[in-house]
């Protein structure tokens, strides 16, 4: 249960979010849409602890998140991806995957140095899981490539895989398919459905309304920092505020085409 109440955020004199109310039930796939600059990424940053809101509260399962640091939120099982999925240049895909795992012995410098065997066992388990996930994401052939050299779409897949290493309860995805070729986009959508089927709650920022319509049960629409609609995807085209918000926006076409299922 993910709840935000009255969340507001300003940068200097610019109010980016105002009074955002949001509720996500466990197991849902929720879309977050809105024109460019409407505050979607800022909201996601607030939900994931990368920004602390100026006003309002964010709760997850009864725990306040709005004053926690990014890493604390992540350790609660709420993981996010980024709009630009940068990956390290000097790490292989497999190593990057391991970064997402929790390896308590390997992470402790002194303990890890002395308990070689326990460390190796722990890592072997994680490697097994990483290979499975890479297979699931169709990245098996890239295991030894430098993660930073992958194509944009592959990086998006990889960042999904990295986030999945700890079986998160909630995934906050910032445009998981932007800039990805159509074939790969379908793969990503399918994988996200599978992930959700395994019990992970998803919040997805997307521009592609087709994607939203196919994936989400509910969608929130942000405009100028406020939630202007919360409804089923197919209700969007009938909502005058949404249509108005998108008029003159770069891609109003998506509203029209997006609602109908392909």
């Amino acid at each position, binding site marked *: 249960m993910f709840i935000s109440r009255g969340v507001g955020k300003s940068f200097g004199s610019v109010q980016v979010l105002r009074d955002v109310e949001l509720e996500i039930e466990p197991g849902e796939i929720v879309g977050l849409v809105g024109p460019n600059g409407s505050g979607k990424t800022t909201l996601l940053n607030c939900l994931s602890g990368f920004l602390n809101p100026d006003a309002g509260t964010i709760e997850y399962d009864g725990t306040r998140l709005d004053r926690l640091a990014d890493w604390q939120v*992540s350790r609660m099982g709420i993981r996010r991806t980024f709009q630009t999925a940068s990956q390290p240049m000097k790490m292989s895909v497999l190593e990057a995957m391991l970064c997402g795992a929790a390896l308590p012995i390997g992470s402790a*410098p002194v303990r890890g140095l002395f308990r070689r065997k326990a460390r190796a066992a722990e890592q072997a388990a994680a490697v097994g899981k990483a290979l499975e996930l890479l297979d699931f994401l169709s990245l098996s052939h890239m295991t030894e490539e430098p993660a930073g050299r992958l194509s944009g779409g592959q990086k998006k897949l990889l960042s999904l895989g990295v986030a999945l290493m700890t079986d998160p309860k909630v995934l906050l995805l910032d445009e998981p398919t932007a800039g990805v070729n159509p074939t790969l986009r379908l793969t990503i959508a399918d994988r996200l459905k599978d992930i959700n089927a395994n019990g992970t709650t998803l919040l997805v920022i997307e521009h592609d309304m087709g994607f939203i319509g196919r994936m989400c049960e509910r969608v929130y629409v942000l405009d100028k920092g406020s939630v202007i609609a919360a409804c089923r995807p197919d209700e969007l085209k009938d909502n005058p505020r949404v249509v108005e918000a998108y008029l003159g926006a770069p891609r109003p076409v998506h509203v029209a085409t997006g609602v109908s299922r392909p």
Partner: protein
Amino acid sequence: MLDFALYVATIAAVYALFALSLNLQAGVTGLLNFGHVAFFGVGAYSSGIVALHGGHWLLGVLVGVVVSSLLGAVIGRLGRTLAADYWAIVTLAVAECLRLVVVNEGDLTGGPQGISGIAGPFSSVSGLAGSLSWLVLCVVLAALAYLVAETLTGMQFGRVLRLLREEPMLAASLGHNITAEKTRVLAVAAPIAAVGGSVYTLYISYIGPNQLLPIETFLVFTMLIIGGIGNNRGAVFGALVIQLIYAGSRFLKDIFPIPDQSASSVRLLIVGLVLTAFLMTRPEGLFAEKLRRIDVHQ
């Protein structure tokens, strides 16, 4: 000549400790610690002060390890709010403050005179046997430090450090506490340099405040850059190469007819030019950082 070669090799091994320690911070984690000299200063002065009061040399090494680790943690903590280049200047300021305390609190540190006549483990062994014992000790320590650094870099701890060097946001999103990791790597890397400082002090049986000048930090950075930053093997070779260049350049005036009054500035000039030329042509160093393979069939 053999003696001199042994000496150069011993010093190179000691500098390898400094370089490995800095590599964990600057190379692996991307923390430009301009105050690195403070760590080996702590080790050196711990050994010096303990020796001054008649303590066993091992005690001095131990004190240095503990104090430097604490200092490292404190400096790492400072990195919580600071961007990289600002943090670098703060570390420099901390190291300089430490040096000024060393210069001015003569009752404790010997002041500008430093502490001399420090007895080390092989003080009673003279001649070639003594030189060899020192070389073996320092090489063993350097090898040990290399193993530790290599293990730390390869395991999850180091992997996270490398990730937060390259993609700090990604690291945070995966639940890694950047401040804590920075603090930990400094607390772990500092003792390696402190041991180096202790051994160096015991070896040349002297420590003075001039060994804590910022230029010493830059010398170690130079070793890393030449060797290949981010690569532990590079750190070791960088230490060796720089030591060879500095020591070797002393022979320039013996071969070439350089007038005596300009020999030293010419030597410095050549050292500077060699470094510059090297950096311009091979910026990634002798050994570039490589991808780490993970054995999947274990």
